[in-house]
């Protein structure tokens, strides 16, 4: 489904992604962790074409990135992205946030899009908040709307960029619960997060990145119990203490 081969990216002189090779299968859930500045966010932003890269190859759902605007757009319709800062549209209600892309990009009828939107908002537990504007919702509720917004495009792949980092602790679980049920339904997911409990529960593989490179990638049992690399051990000891 997602195929990185020797991908490299520089910000000026800074080598932010070095020689990334990774393959994510259909239905697989890969959790990416690592210290800040390790390149993990940049990595998944590449998958959705939000970041250009200079060297190597990235094939997502059979489409190679770096082609035309139009092919990128077709790809993005199949790949959902959930941001750390939610990025809900402040001038639209929760329901409008969810229906906007299906109507204008998928060219669904308004009625069909609303039907789908309502079902999705119900699914994420926000049946009573459809007509609310983002600023009337808590952080956790906003992030759930954002997830429903991505799902409304019926994507094959979902990308999450630290979806709970901007949330108050008491709201983290309501978002993680939605993500867990999504994983259980067989969605292909790449998730950048420090929520190791989530990784243990649903990840097929956990990946540790540092200084732009993949340091270690393994099934959760192995990753958490017998990490091979010192840097991974060091990182885990810091994260798991919390």
């Amino acid at each position, binding site marked *: 489904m997602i195929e990185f081969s020797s991908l490299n990216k520089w910000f000026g002189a800074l080598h932010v992604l070095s020689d990334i090779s990774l393959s994510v299968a259909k239905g697989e859930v890969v959790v990416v962790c690592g210290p800040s500045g390790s390149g993990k966010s940049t990595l998944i932003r590449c998958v959705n074409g939000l970041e250009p890269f200079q060297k190597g190859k990235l094939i997502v759902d059979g489409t190679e990135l770096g082609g035309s605007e139009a092919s990128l757009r077709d790809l*993005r319709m199949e*790949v959902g*992205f959930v*941001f750390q800062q939610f*990025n809900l*549209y402040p001038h639209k209600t929760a329901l409008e946030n969810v229906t906007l892309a299906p109507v204008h990009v998928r060219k669904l009828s308004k009625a069909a899009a609303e039907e789908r939107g309502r079902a999705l908002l119900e699914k994420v537990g926000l049946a009573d908040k459809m007509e609310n504007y983002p600023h009337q919702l808590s952080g956790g509720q906003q992030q759930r709307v954002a997830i429903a917004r991505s799902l409304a495009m019926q994507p094959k792949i979902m990308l999450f960029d630290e979806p709970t980092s901007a949330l108050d602790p008491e709201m983290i679980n309501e978002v993680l619960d939605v993500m867990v049920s999504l994983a259980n339904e067989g969605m292909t997911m790449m998730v950048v997060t420090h929520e190791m409990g989530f990784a243990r529960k649903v990840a097929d593989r956990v990946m540790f990145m540092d200084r732009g490179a993949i340091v270690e990638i393994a099934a959760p049992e192995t990753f958490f119990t017998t990490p091979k690399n010192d840097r991974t051990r060091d990182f885990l000891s810091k994260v798991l203490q919390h």
Partner: protein
Amino acid sequence: MFWMQLDRVMGYWPVLLKGISMTVSLSILSLMIGVMLGFAFGMIRAGRNRMLAQIVGLYVDFFRGTPFLLQVFIVFFILPEIGIELSAFASGVVALSNVAACFIGEIVASGIKAVPLGQSEAAASSGFTRVQQMRHIVLPQAVRIVTPALVGQFVLLIKDSSVVSAIGLLDLTRSGWVIVQSVPNGLLVFGIIGFSYFVICYPLIYLSRRMERRGQATIL
């Protein structure tokens, strides 16, 4: 003496009325053209094509950096030289809507830049084209941000319209100039003229201030 003069000034009410309607129609027409052109300028100025943005920037700078009176003369004297003959009214509308577009363009550009990048990223990641991102996501938010400033700009436009009296258009200011020739009491005549402007402009100033305050309240 005062009452007699007031009576005489009031005898000129048709001139005054004509002046007011000229000022209002000049301002509204120029506002409409200026807003349309200004939004186009703003989108180019905040857009991706750096070259085009800089060319428009240079053009905008020319009209932001020179006095409006001079611009009125340029439109009135220079356009005929290159074969464009305009009436005084049309010249006034061209000069006013052009200068309005230049100021509005910079306001709109700043509004577009004030919309967080995450907004267009979110739209892009659901497959919106650039034009769709601008139309559905960025522009509606930018408009909200810049509305108070746009209302303020309209006040400036109304006031600037007084300058076109210099090419002989009978606007509100010019009507004062005409009346004062036969009723030689400048304080009274231009007091009335000023009061008329105040009645037109102050509600807009008040509106702009209120919107600004309300805007701050929702941000905080």
